[in-house]
């Protein structure tokens, strides 16, 4: 015993090292499991056949498989992230900017100025969308949600705001300023900025989403868009019950951080508006505020305030999975964050197309001089030669170039599934019109071709690459209600 003490002491460094090296394996055997920090499924084990063992990928796969199962990796990531963020004020992610007092900002908000600027004008897109909704007997409300870097700009680092972020802020301000006259676009950002001016935080410090105060404004804006005064009638407001959120921006920096905010909901006993005819389209804030269960007993704002309302997210809209809901809805409320504004041209065409199919416009005619020798039928339709690209112009004596219009071009006759491509010339500025139909299956659908104010219909050509057997109906022109202020 006397001799073993010094021996143990001599061996202590070695035993310590071995204990640490064995710790994750032993912990795993004892049932300890890690969370995958990156919010993904753990990598699976690669196949271990004889031929696979001669492939470098097999060993890289085994490394990844082991890495994802060793306990403590998530704790290690968290520790390192905390050292970097709180010790050095350093952002390990190019997507996250650290502001004053360790406020975090998401640089994806600079997207319009970092090579992903929208090809078409998003203001025009909103105008076409709200106009198309109105002429098709619907109401569509767009709620631009000001970016954190704009609303909480006092928290940005004073001398190191990237030029791209300043540029994006200008883009966003211009977008909202130009839409200020559109009655279907409530100015939520102004309400948020008013709160900030009073010293109220509207965004969470480490997250891209709102605090209780910001959330309250958003929920009220959504409900009032469905039915004016609905939020007040339901007594929407903070309910005095906290809800925990895992902060999303710290996750980029490998830090697990929890923020707590009060839930925002109607009065517990309030009875909502039956909303079978309502479609909500949104991003993550809509998800957090309206769709996720909260409180006790758990329930959603959607379920209580808008029972029966449907929901689509933006990817669903882009992929066409939302089309039947777009057709069925009479009231549509859309959350617009920066990335949605940039991507608006993708979803816009689907929504305008869906809404305009059941709409008829003023009859116009194809200019015979433009039909390239194709004979016009008595009803004004024409059958282009198979595989022959047609460039057509419209004659419309009642055309009002001071208003936004949508030209509908009914198409029929082609086999189901055959695609006809349609194109409208770009504006003189070089930006094409948003929300245009690019191709139709020609199974009785109409191509929808918006034409913005300031453009003469007679001066424009529509290019059609027809499917076999296509019959192009006479064009119809729908003049949209005045929207832009």
């Amino acid at each position, binding site marked *: 015993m006397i001799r073993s003490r010094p021996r143990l002491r001599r061996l202590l460094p070695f035993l310590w090292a071995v204990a640490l090296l*064995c710790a994750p394996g032993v912990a795993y055997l004892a049932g300890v499991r890690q969370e995958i920090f990156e919010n993904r499924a753990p990598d699976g084990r690669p196949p271990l056949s004889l031929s696979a063992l001669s492939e470098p990928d097999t060993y890289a796969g085994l490394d990844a498989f082991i890495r994802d199962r060793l306990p403590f990796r998530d704790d290690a990531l968290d520790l390192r992230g905390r050292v970097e963020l709180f010790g050095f004020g350093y952002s390990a992610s190019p997507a996250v900017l650290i502001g004053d007092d360790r406020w975090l900002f998401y640089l994806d908000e600079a997207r319009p100025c970092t090579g992903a600027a929208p090809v078409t004008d998003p203001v025009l897109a909103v105008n076409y969308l709200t106009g198309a909704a109105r002429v098709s007997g619907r109401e569509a409300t767009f709620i631009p949600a000001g970016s954190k870097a704009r609303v909480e700009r006092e928290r940005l680092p004073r001398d*190191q705001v990237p030029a791209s972020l300043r540029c994006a802020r200008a883009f966003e301000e211009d977008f909202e300023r130009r839409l200020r006259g559109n009655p279907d676009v409530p100015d939520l950002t102004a309400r948020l900025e008013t709160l900030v001016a009073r010293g109220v935080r509207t965004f969470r410090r480490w997250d891209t989403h709102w605090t209780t105060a910001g959330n309250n404004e958003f929920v009220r804006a959504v409900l009032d868009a469905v039915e004016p005064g609905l939020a007040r009638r339901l007594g929407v407001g903070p309910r005095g019950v906290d809800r925990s959120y895992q902060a999303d921006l710290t996750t980029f920096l490998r830090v697990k951080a929890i923020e707590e905010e009060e839930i925002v909901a109607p009065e517990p006993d309030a009875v909502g508006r039956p909303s079978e005819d309502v479609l909500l389209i949104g991003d993550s804030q809509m998800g957090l505020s309206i769709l996720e269960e909260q409180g006790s007993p758990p329930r959603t704002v959607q379920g209580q305030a808008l029972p029966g309302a449907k929901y689509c997210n933006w990817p669903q809209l882009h992929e066409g999975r939302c089309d039947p809901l777009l057709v069925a809805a009479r009231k549509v409320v859309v959350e617009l964050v920066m990335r949605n504004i940039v991507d608006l041209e993708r979803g816009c065409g689907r929504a305008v197309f869906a809404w305009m199919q059941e709409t008829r416009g003023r009859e116009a005619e194809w200019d015979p001089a433009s039909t390239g020798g194709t004979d016009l039928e008595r009803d004004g339709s024409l059958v282009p030669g198979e595989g022959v690209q047609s460039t057509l112009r419209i004659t419309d004596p009642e055309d009002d170039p001071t208003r936004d219009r949508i030209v509908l071009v009914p198409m029929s006759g082609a086999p189901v599934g055959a695609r006809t491509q349609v194109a409208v010339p770009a504006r003189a500025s070089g930006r094409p019109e948003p929300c245009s139909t690019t191709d139709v299956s020609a199974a009785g659908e109409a191509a929808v071709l918006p034409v913005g104010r300031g453009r003469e219909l007679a001066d424009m050509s529509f290019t059609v690459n027809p499917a076999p057997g296509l019959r192009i109906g006479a064009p119809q022109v729908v003049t949209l209600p005045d929207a832009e202020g």
Partner: protein
Amino acid sequence: MVFSSPTFLFLFLPAVLIAVWLSPARGRNLLLVLASAGFYVWGAQEFLLVVVLSTLADFFLSRSIESAREGGDDRRARLLLIAAIVQNLALLAWFKYASFGVDQLNRALGELGIETVGTLSIVLPIGISFFTFGKLSYVVDVFRGEVRAVRSPVDLLLFVLLFPQAIAGPIVRLREIETQLTDRPLREDMLARGAVRFSHGLAKKVLIADTIAPVADMAFASAEAGTLTTTAAWIGLLAYTMQLYYDFSGYCDMAIGIGMMLGFNLPENFDRPYTAKSITEFWRRWHMTLSRWFRDYVYIPLGGNRGSEGRIARNLVIVFLLTGFWHGAAWAFVLWGAYHGAWLLAERRFGLRTVEGDVALPWLRQGAMFLIVMLGWVLFRAEDLGLAIDYYTVMFTPNGLALPGEMRALLGGPAGPVLVGAALVALVPSALSGGRWLVEAAGTLPRLSRTATLAAILPLGLLWTLTSDFSPFLYFRF
């Protein structure tokens, strides 16, 4: 497998250590050969077979060389030696230099307007330069009678494949571990010292080298993109200078530490090289096993310091061109070797070959040495001559003092203070550095310091390895 990967640290290493301690002494070599083969397969797959076959060829050739020498048949011994050298160098030439050779041939044919001969695409097996030099030293030493030919193929395979040193050095010669191959008690003091040394190496790699690496990466990426500024170029080069040292010496510390825990005393490879006061001294402190190898197997056989100044200069130039070429099949490496060779010649010419002892203006001499070495690393890192020229151009034609925002942000994080601290530690004279004292000194204070350091650094280093995906050591590619 790399030393800083979770697979190695948390599965392979503890499993091997425990298996070795639990196994009877006579089975340890076979166990270690199998473990080393597994380690090597992880990074080089079927190339293991080539290494094994080549080692077995060395085994039989070395036995034959020894028999021929002992039988007095020097001519046969010499022929067998040539065969052994050729089979080793042929592997190196094929895997490492054939593509480069074909590229150069094609370039020459293109210049002459002759049809080119196509290209070769050969995967470079990791560590080939290291174990080829180890194997070459073995057959030459047997020929010279400096070591006995190894009696067991398992022992020779262990000498070549021993996983701590097989793929990134230090370059071990048989004479340095000859007795340990057959008699290797696991002593308590070596186990403890090995653990400390291993921890230091891990910390050097993951806490220092990997932390400052993004600064160097950013600078060289900016040079490629044409956006490098003068200040960023100098800071980036300082970062690379430190990254290379801490990365490679960290690897060697880990190798030596693991070796100790397995009962081996592997040779030292670094001795605070940036404290040298001449290029000559630098090469006695940097990658010491490679310098010694070239000294013993190239420089001295060529005549070494004997003969005229011209002959000595020729020998030095050959050695340093080969040193450059050993590091990589690219003209930039050859030029880097020539650059160091030229400075060595200049030091000989002007009597500045200070190696040890008091010298006038030591700080100035050290500063000059450091600057020369640092500038050389541009060639080493760029690999491409065009990029190196661009980098030098920015360094020496000032285009503004302001640092780009991205590099400012990077230096504002851990990379900045770590870089400053790393540079200070690497540059202070040995007497003021605590590293060696911490590892080797006896007494209560050093032991307490060792324990405290180990207690803090090892967990941090291990945790950091869990946070970074694959981060290979720089010297793996050589």
